[in-house]
């Protein structure tokens, strides 16, 4: 199981970094851009409110402007960051679910298959004494698997 977790993390590296950067840039922008409160005084958003705003901006478009209505500069920054974040979220989602039917993800699928094979083999070994034909590779292995009438690949029964 651990290999799979590490592989997923490894594959998620690029989109995760993209999301962290997008959040950091957006939050930083909101703390730097001056706003005006309802009395017209200049105020700066603090990190907590900037993070809060950016977080719910990333998940929903259709939000209020807190704690005071935004100035034009703040709205311009919000517009830019909305598109920036949307792009990175889509990248992340595409990475996460990419290619399970296609072969794009071949090595990852191999690990998943091997993991399935391991569980299946250990379960069989626990249930009944079994004969293991190990060490076969290449054409003999292919023939053996075909003889045993099982779907090709590593998930062949091992009895």
């Amino acid at each position, binding site marked *: 199981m651990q290999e799979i977790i*590490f592989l997923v*993390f490894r*594959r998620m*590296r690029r989109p995760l*970094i993209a999301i962290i950067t997008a959040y950091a840039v957006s*939050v930083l922008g909101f703390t730097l851009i001056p706003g005006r409160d309802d009395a017209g005084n200049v105020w700066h958003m603090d990190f907590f409110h900037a993070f809060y705003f950016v977080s719910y901006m990333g998940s929903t478009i259709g939000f209020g402007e807190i704690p005071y209505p935004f100035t034009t500069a703040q709205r311009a920054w919000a517009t830019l960051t909305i598109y920036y974040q949307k792009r990175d979220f889509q990248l992340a989602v595409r990475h996460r679910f990419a290619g399970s039917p296609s072969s794009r993800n071949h090595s990852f699928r191999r690990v998943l298959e091997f993991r399935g094979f391991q569980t299946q083999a250990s379960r069989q070994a626990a249930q009944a004494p079994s004969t293991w034909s190990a060490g076969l590779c290449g054409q003999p292995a292919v023939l053996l698997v075909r003889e045993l009438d099982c779907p090709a690949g590593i998930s062949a029964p091992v009895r």
Partner: protein
Amino acid sequence: MNLEKVVFAFFILLALTLNFGFVMGEISNPLHHNKYELFGALTVSLIATVLKFGDRTHIGAVLLATSLVADLQLIGAALVWWYAEQVSMVGLTPQIMADIVGLSGGALVANFASVVILIIETVMLRR
């Protein structure tokens, strides 16, 4: 030379230097500690953590662990800051500031360990 390795070392070192810049100064004086620097240190530390994902060697695991420790400490420091300014409203008293800098000082040690491991790994590489 390999761009990936440059980026990797860059972020690990930058995490240490930003963290050091934040911790530097009198421990309880809020004037000596810039919140933007803490924000930068936390962001770079998170990126460094993600960069360390997926290395299954022993040294890779230890590197990831040091990074996680640094993240934890920096997030703790940021939370204390947030709590003092916005929840309990006591503001940045010397006591609170010392807590924040203490927590990020712990992260500094973790980041330092990370850089030491990186250097050891580099030195061990044979040409």
